């Protein structure tokens, strides 16, 4: 049984006019203990929405239409609000996109970590909780005495580390890192990624990394899930996705990314934009931008097919296509 098992999750945003915009449709994936999953896709393709839905932290307009989210066999979507509050952070925690905004600017880093420990009763006693906070900071490479400082006194990379320390406070089973390296320079990105990989191995975490940076995914993820406009177009092992992409979107996405081994290769951009959520095409959502789309792509929604072991692709054209 996978630690985190998401099945057929669909999320809608309701507009003021009462229209439901389908932001994530039929998303399924599994993550095992000690494994990492990378979720990639363009901005606005629903990556963060899916993550917030797992934690049931969607903004007010967001609704989970259907699906199940099993965390160690327990369906999170059926839990009461109180149960959910206990599970958050103790079982599943998240490092938010842009750590600079996710820390309370008027409280010290230490007090914010202590708060987590106290809410979940990991350390009830203030003195011991502070010691534990220091240990957590040390784990991510921040000198414990700097816990007395405020977020604005930290650099971007340190804030990201502090967020990771906070995320690990209650020994969660699943750690979600939402764009952990955005807004950091490459050196710091590498540090943060190394840190995440190290912690994932030593703490045996199930790690989900949400990003639009394929390099990050290639670096540390066992499995990759490619999203486009709220749907999963392809999932598989990192090796399968990077070396044998089957879905035309994955293919073009990889071509749009510079390759260190052939630096002179042309970067191909994908013409057009992702569809607006209120004007979704009736068939495959990628069809309007797809260079090989056929008639039925525009009419019929493709079902994901398992083309190899644990390599799924949602494309009508796959069976007839060769690389």
């Amino acid at each position, binding site marked *: 049984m996978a630690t985190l098992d998401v099945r057929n999750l669909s999320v809608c945003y309701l507009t003021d006019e009462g229209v439901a915009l389908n932001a994530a449709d039929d998303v399924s994936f599994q993550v095992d203990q000690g494994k990492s999953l990378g979720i990639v896709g363009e901005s606005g393709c629903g990556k963060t929405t899916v993550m917030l839905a797992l934690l049931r932290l969607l903004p007010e307009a967001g609704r989970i239409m259907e699906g199940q989210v099993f965390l160690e066999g327990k369906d999170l979507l059926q839990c009461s609000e109180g149960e959910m*509050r206990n599970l958050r*952070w103790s079982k599943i*925690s998240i490092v938010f996109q842009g750590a600079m905004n996710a820390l*309370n600017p008027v409280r010290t880093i230490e007090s914010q970590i202590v708060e987590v420990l106290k809410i979940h009763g990991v350390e009830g006693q203030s003195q011991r909780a502070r010691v534990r906070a220091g240990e957590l900071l040390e784990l991510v490479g921040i000198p414990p005495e700097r816990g007395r400082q405020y977020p604005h006194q930290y650099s971007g990379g340190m804030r990201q580390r502090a967020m990771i320390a906070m995320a690990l406070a209650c020994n969660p089973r699943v750690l979600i890192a939402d764009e952990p390296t955005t807004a950091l320079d490459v050196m710091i990105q590498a540090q943060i990624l190394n840190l995440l990989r190290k912690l994932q191995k030593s703490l045996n975490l199930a790690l989900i990394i949400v990003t639009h940076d394929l390099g990050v995914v290639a670096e540390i993820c066992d499995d990759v899930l490619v999203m486009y406009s709220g749907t999963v177009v392809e999932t598989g092992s990192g090796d399968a996705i990077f070396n044998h992409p089957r879905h035309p979107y994955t293919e073009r996405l990889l071509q749009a990314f510079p390759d260190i081994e052939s630096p002179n290769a042309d970067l191909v951009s994908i013409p057009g934009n992702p569809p607006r959520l209120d004007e979704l095409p009736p068939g495959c959502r990628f069809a309007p931008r797809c260079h090989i789309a056929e008639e039925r792509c525009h009419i019929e929604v493709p079902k994901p097919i398992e083309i190899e072991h644990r390599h799924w692709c949602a494309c009508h054209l796959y069976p007839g296509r060769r690389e």
Partner: protein
Amino acid sequence: MREQLQEIWRTFRRKPMGMIGLFMLFSVVFIAIFAPWFAPYDPGEKIHVEPKDLLAPPDAEHLLGRDDAGKDVLSQLIYGARVSLTVGFVASFMAMFIGTTVGLVAGYYGGRIGNALMRLVDFLLVIPDLPLMMVFISIWGRGLWKIILVIGLLGWTTTARLVRSQVLSLKERQFVLRAKAIGASNFRIIMRHIFPQVLPIILAETVLSISGAIIDESSLSFLGLGDPMLVSWGMMLNFAFERAISRMAWWFLLPPGFAIVWVSVGVVLMGSTLEEIVNPRLKTHHLFNPARMLELFKVAS
């Protein structure tokens, strides 16, 4: 939170207008607390008066002259500060407490509760305060605590609106989402994550509202609705207006008026300086503050 208040004080100290306001307010607070030492006479004391003592002009023994009952005006003025300040402070703290609670709840929860509360605010805002207070006092009867209650219960509306507008923007910030993700309850998020951030603005607003409360009390007393057992500045004005003005006894009329102006100006100077400091738009980055830079180095090394 403490750090924040210290920061405010550090900036406040360097603003002459604010310090003048602070001095003006605290000189009166000091005199009011130690009234028995400052007042040359006890206003409650029974005294023997001759007709020539009534409304006697100032002289060496009575620096501000005597009132229509032959009592020392200066002593009444000093004891009157106690009443006016008590009303000012207690009523504005009460208003701040209600306003903050309403603002936090309305802003954070929004929806039906928020709407209901804000409509109540609108309702109270459109009714002129003074006539409404007069109605309440005439129903409940006159008394110091009733006056405080009336001013407090009607004076929270602007605070509520101000706090609500801040909370509306704060609750969308990401650290609130993060706080939810760590499993914090709504109450905890409000108290630990949102309230500390609106505190400075509440502080400035409270200080500003003290003068409003003092003036309200004076108006009520001037109109004859004050506590009959206690002589506040407004009450003195009322007496002077009724009994002394026809005899040109300016020493009875002017001092309480000036006292009210003195405290109000002091409070407003202080409040607007505080507002200037805590207004987020006027805040500078810590790197532009040399003292903070040094401090950072100390902590880091």
